[in-house]
Structures are given as C-alpha cells and as structure tokens.
C-alpha cells in the first residue's frame, strides 16, 4: 500500500519520519478531522457562554472578577509552551531524541504551571462567590474554561507518557507520528485559549 507512494518520487524532499508510513499519515489526517470536531465543540461552548454571561443572578459579574495580570501571565505561559513544542518537533525532524524530549518536557512543565494558575484563579473566584452552581454565568464560565483546562490536563498526561515512550524507543516510525499529533493537539489548545482570552476575559473586563 505504501508502494504507490514511491511511484510519485518527489526529488529529495526533506525526510519526515512521522509521514513515512501509511499508519503515520492516517494518524495525522485523522487527528486533523478530530480537531475539526473539537473546534465545533468549543464553538458551541463559546456560544453558550456568550448567551449566558450576563445571567449572574446577583452574583459577582465578570468585570468584578477578572484581573488582567494573572490571565496575561497564563496566556504568556501557554503561548510559550506552544513554542517549546515546536522546538520539540524540530528536534524530532533533526532525529535528535534528547532535544525533542527536553523541549517536550519543558512543554509539560509550562502546561502544569498554567494549570496551577488556573486552579488558583478558580479558588479565588469561588471565594468571591462565583461558583459553578451560583448562576448560569458561573455554569457556562466554568464549563468553557474548565473544558479547556481539562484538555490541558489531558495533554500534560498524554505528552508525559509519550516522553516515556520516546525515551524507551527513540524516534521511530511508530513514535514520531504520536509526537507530531500531540504537538498539533497542543497548538489547538493554545488557539482555543487565545479565543478564551479574547472572548471571556477581555470582553468580560470591558463590558
């Protein structure tokens, strides 16, 4: 099946391990479709949030709650982690396991830092009376931001197990697509956060 790929010999394209097998190509394409579905999922959560964000039912409003410095810090951390995952993939393309694992390790640490900030933020809000069950605003806020957060958590666990695999097996036709797909996922999470930063926090602070 991979035979007919060799027929279309492109002259000396850069060699990418992640797409060297049909399984790898399938995995990456399938993951793009999955990200398409995730985009719709988050779009629906954004829609719900936008419809309900003023339904505070007497609880604290978004202007009272949100503070720019902390959200900005979280944003910087997450954006940086996207960069480090790119460095990891560059390491993979240079067949350098150590570089790859190092940068993915940094990515995981940044992800954890982001999660720590988010948990701290949520605890603060709960102290101010902004809870999941307080109002429709609370429900939709925690569901949207929390879904993103649980995606970050999932990514952290996922990449950690991948680092273990990469450390055991190195960069192979089997592990390379996994790392590539994980980095796609991580960028996606980052893009979603950019939207959360804009739609939830910036919009919430000005209105």
């Amino acid at each position, binding site marked *: *099946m991979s*035979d*007919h790929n060799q027929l279309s010999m492109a002259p000396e394209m850069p060699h990418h391990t992640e797409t060297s097998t*049909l399984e790898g*190509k*399938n995995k990456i*394409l*399938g993951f793009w*479709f*999955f990200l*398409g*579905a*995730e985009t*719709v*999922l988050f779009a*629906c*959560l954004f*829609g*719900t949030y936008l*419809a*309900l964000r003023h*339904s*505070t*039912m007497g609880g604290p409003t978004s202007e009272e709650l949100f503070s720019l410095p902390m959200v900005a810090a979280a944003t910087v951390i997450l954006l940086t982690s996207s960069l480090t995952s790119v460095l990891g993939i560059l390491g993979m393309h240079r067949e350098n396991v150590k570089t790859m694992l190092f940068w993915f390790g940094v990515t995981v640490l940044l992800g954890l830092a982001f999660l720590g900030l988010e948990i701290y933020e949520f605890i603060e809000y709960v102290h101010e009376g902004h809870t*999941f*069950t307080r*109002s*429709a*605003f*609370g*429900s*939709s806020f925690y*569901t949207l931001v929390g879904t993103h957060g649980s995606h970050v958590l999932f990514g952290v666990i996922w990449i950690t*197990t991948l680092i273990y*695999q990469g450390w055991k097996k190195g960069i192979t036709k*089997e592990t390379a697509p996994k790392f590539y797909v994980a980095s796609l996922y991580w960028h996606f999470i980052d893009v979603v956060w950019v939207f959360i930063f804009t739609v939830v926090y910036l919009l919430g602070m000005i209105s």
Partner: protein
Amino acid sequence: MFIVAIFTGGYNDRFLERVRNHWLWDWLTTVDHKKIGIMYFLSGFFFLLVGGIEALLIRMQLIVPNNDFMVGDTFNQLLTMHGTTMIFLAAMPMIFGLMNVVVPLQIGARDVAFPFMNALGFWLFLAGGLLLNFSWLFGGAPDAGWTGYPLLALNQFSPGPGVDYYVLGLQIAGLSSMMGAINFLVTIVNMRAPGMTFLRMPLFTWGAFITSALLVFALPPLTVGLFELMFDRLFGSHFYDVAGGGDPVIWQHLFWIFGHPEVYILVLPAFGVMSEVIATFSKKRLFGYSSMVFAMVLIGFLGFMVWVHHMFTVGLGPMSNAVFAIATMTIAVPTGIKIFNWLFTMWGGRIRFTTPMLFAVGFIPTFVIGGVTGVMLAVPPADFQYHDTYFVVAHFHYVIIGGTIFGLFAGMYYWWPKMFGKKLNETLGRWHFWLFLIGFHLTFLVQHWLGLWGMPRRVFTYQPGYGLEWGNQLSTAGALLMGVSMIFLLVNIAVTARRGEKAGADPWDGRTLEWAIPSPAPEYNFAQLPLVRDVDALWYAKMNGKKGIEPAEPIGSIHMPSPSYLPILMAIGFFIAGFGFVMRAIPAAVLGLIMVFLTMFMRSFDHDPGYHIEPEEIEATEKGARA
C-alpha cells in the same frame, strides 16, 4: 477471563488456549472491518426490532379513543425510547454496518485506516445502546421525548434516572459515531486503490464520505448539549434552568444544529445505496454521475443551514424564520436532481425487479412524498398550523423510513451475498417488500390527515366523536402489517442461513469493485490491489472482455493488524462509568473512568506488530473461493 482465572486459581494455559481458539473470542477481539460491519448491522437490526415493538405498543394504545393500555408515564417512555432507539441504535448502526462492510471493498482497500478504533467504536455503540435499554429494568426509561427538551428534561419535571440514561447512553454512542466517522474519512482519503480518483468513487462511498464529514461537525453540538443537560441534572448547574438564569432555547439550538444534519447523515448513505442498486439492476451507467456527487455535497452543506425550521414556533422572529425557511426549501433542488437522475437511469434500462431493486423503486415515490410535505412544513405560517400534530409525525416517517429504512433494506438484500456468501431468498424478499410497503403507507399516509384534523403528537389518547377513530385504526393496522413483514425477513434470514445457495463472487452482475473478489470477502479483501481506470471499474473490465480487474501490484505478503481485547474492555469501562453516573454512584463512575484510562495506557504502550499473510496462503484461499 480474569474472573475465571481468579476462580480457577491462576491462569491455566490449556484453558487460555481454548478461549483463544473459540469462535466467540475471535468475534469479540476482531479488528476486521467486515466482521465489525456485520456486528454493527446485526445489533442495529436487533434494536430495530426493539424499536418496532415499542412502535407497535404505541399504535395499540392509540387504536381506540380513551384506551388505557399504555398511558401516562409508560406512554411517554415508549415514545421517547422508540424515537431514540430508531435513530441512534437502529438506523445509524445499520448504516455503519453497511459502510464498514462495503466502503473499503468499493475503494479497493485492504483494510480501514484505524481497525482498532473501528472495533472500539462498535463496542462503544453497543455499550451505549445497552445502557439506554437498561433503563427499562432499572429505574424507568427516559420520558422527555427523543428531543429531550428542557425544562421537561430537568430534574423537577423528569425526576428519576430516565433522562440520565438518555444523556449518558447517547454520549457513549456518540463517541462511537465520531470514531467511526473519522475512520471512514481517513480511509477514503488515504487508502483508495491506484487510479481510484474521487470522481471515480462509487456513489455509496461518496454517501459514506459526506455522511462521515457531517457526523464530525454535527455530533459535537449534541455532545455539548448533552453535557450541559447532564451538568444541570447531576451537578446543579443552570444552563437550561430559567430560575438560575439559564435558557432552554440554547438546548433547542444545540440539539437541532446536530439534529437537522442528522437527517442527512441518515439519508445520504441511503441515496448512495439507491444509486448503486438502480444502476446495477437497470444495467446502465448512473445518469449524471458528477451531478449526483455535487448534489450530495450540496445537500450536506445546506443541511447545516436549516436547523431553525425545527424552531419556527419558538419565537425567534420573522427575519430568522424567513431566512431559514428559504434555506430549507433550497434543499429540494439538489434532492430533485437526484430523484430525476435515478429516473433517467432507469429510463430505457434493462430493469430486473429483484428485491433490492423493489426497495429502491419503492423508495422513490415514498421519499418524494416526504420531501413535498417537508416543503410544506418549511413555510413558517403553515408550520404554525402543522406544529406538534401528526402531520409532522407522518412527514418525518416518510423521510426516515421512506429514505433510510428502504435504503437499508435495499442495501441489505444487495450486499448480503458479500457479507455471508449467500443470497437471501427472493420470494420471501418480495413478501417482505410488498407487506412492508403497503403497511408503511397504510400507517403513515393517513397520519397526514389525522394531523390536519388536529390530532396532536406525543399525547397518549384522543376523544371519540372528532372523526379520529378510523384513521387511527387504519394506522394501527398498517403498523401490524409492517410487523408481519418483518417476520418474513426473519424467516428469510433463517432459511438462507440453513440452506441458502452459495452466491459466488458476482451474483448480481455488478459494476463496482466489491464484486471482483470472492463472497464472503477474504480477510485481506484484495489479493492484489486493483488498478482502477473508470467509474464502475468492474463493469469497465467486463465490457473490455477481461476476466477480472487488472491488478496494480504482484501478489506479495500482506500485513494485517492483530486482534485485540482492549476495545471491549474499554467499552465495559465506559459502560460502568455511565451506569455509575446514572445511579449517582460517583465512586463506581470514577472506577469505570479509571478502567477506561488504564486501557488507553495499555493501548498506548502496546506495540502491535500485526501479522503477515503469505502469498501461498493467499493463493490457496483464492483458489478455494473461486472453486
């Protein structure tokens, strides 16, 4: 197996060996798309019978006015479960079954892109379906209608676990559809045989492709809606609860942004089946191939633009209603293109009225009636009249039975030889078709008038003296006739299994690639990948006087993925988690989720080298199959 091991005091090698060689273990762990397809189809068929029995009970209740056979809560449960079962547990899995068996064969692929995920998808669907139906036994079935509208679906109006079963069962089944859809998309994009360009793909594969694309984008809104409903019910959030600032109309949007494309998810594969069957049994190339493809793509696209026509009476205003009314009516154009192309294909063809062809031909007028009433409902002022009456019930049964179920039956009779190596009996098939067709129109044609005369849907009885009696009696009689027709189908399946004739590779004088390989298809599908030169590749080869399709490669060793017991284990984990949430037993739910994650880790670290089928073995299989 672990439990047995515990009871027998550790693993017994001989016992393990016997388990591994048992046919049941083979099916439980299979990653072969044809076997998975058969399992999807048969379990979908089982749920079709369950949903059918629920429908018969509903019709029995409505046979006379003021009947007290199934009233109140019981009726609501039947109604809800009938709709939910038919859409999610019968129609979709049966479609997935056909697609799983046929699509890789039609594009000349050895396997699907993700065999493991495919198996997982099937077991998840089964877990979700069983969880939903567990509700009959433990705590009462969902009773808020298959659309699960809040506020009705919230705790204060639907106490008890019924709606929780709905939420969690559908969530698990939805996961399964997402996996299936991604699998088909990648298979079709990446694994077509050499020469099989997109515009040479058989139309059933096109139907599968567009349906899968719709699923990828339509399921997430339902997922979000269900999650929000679950949070409202289980964790006290306020998405839909007006008292807490929520808005139930959000559910309606989310549900119908999924729900309307769902109609096309159900009907596009049926369109594909029709195109295959009508071309084969008219002995003609399908009229207007590329316009058929274009029409399908357009229908798929427009399917996302029309959800508000389910919400005309919500009060979103004349502007929004008008826009969505026009978008809805636009869909009639590509659908009309398809209908005329089928008619033109038959025109002047050498038509053979086999059972699949009968279902295909019966489909055309039936679906047209459904389409016409669809345009009637797309007019907002008229919709205010028809809303929530039996007119709507009649309309969507004409579309979904007239489209999907007729298509599924046509496809079932058509591809049965490819699935099991035997042709279903034609005489019994005819009985099935005629009784089903007559029963169907008897049941639902009259419901149009019942609706116009004011009979509301979802209500368990009606008063005498309003002229609704005879219509309801006809309708019930028709439903019974449909039930009888299904007995003919069951007998047919049993008779064929016991003493049906061997069908051979190409029993219908087919046109597409699946008929170029033995029936039932060997596990590697194609001994050599075919070289495709035209639409209807096999027909092209036959017309050029060739014995089979030209191969694109020499015979060589074929790599296959190994079977795995992880999919079923993961599905059990999901089932436990779902059941735990329904029963508000959070520790059990967490335990189930832990099981899911453990199996995920096992899969992640599991290095599957697969196995190879060597050329000698392939030659032996092929020889045995041809003889």
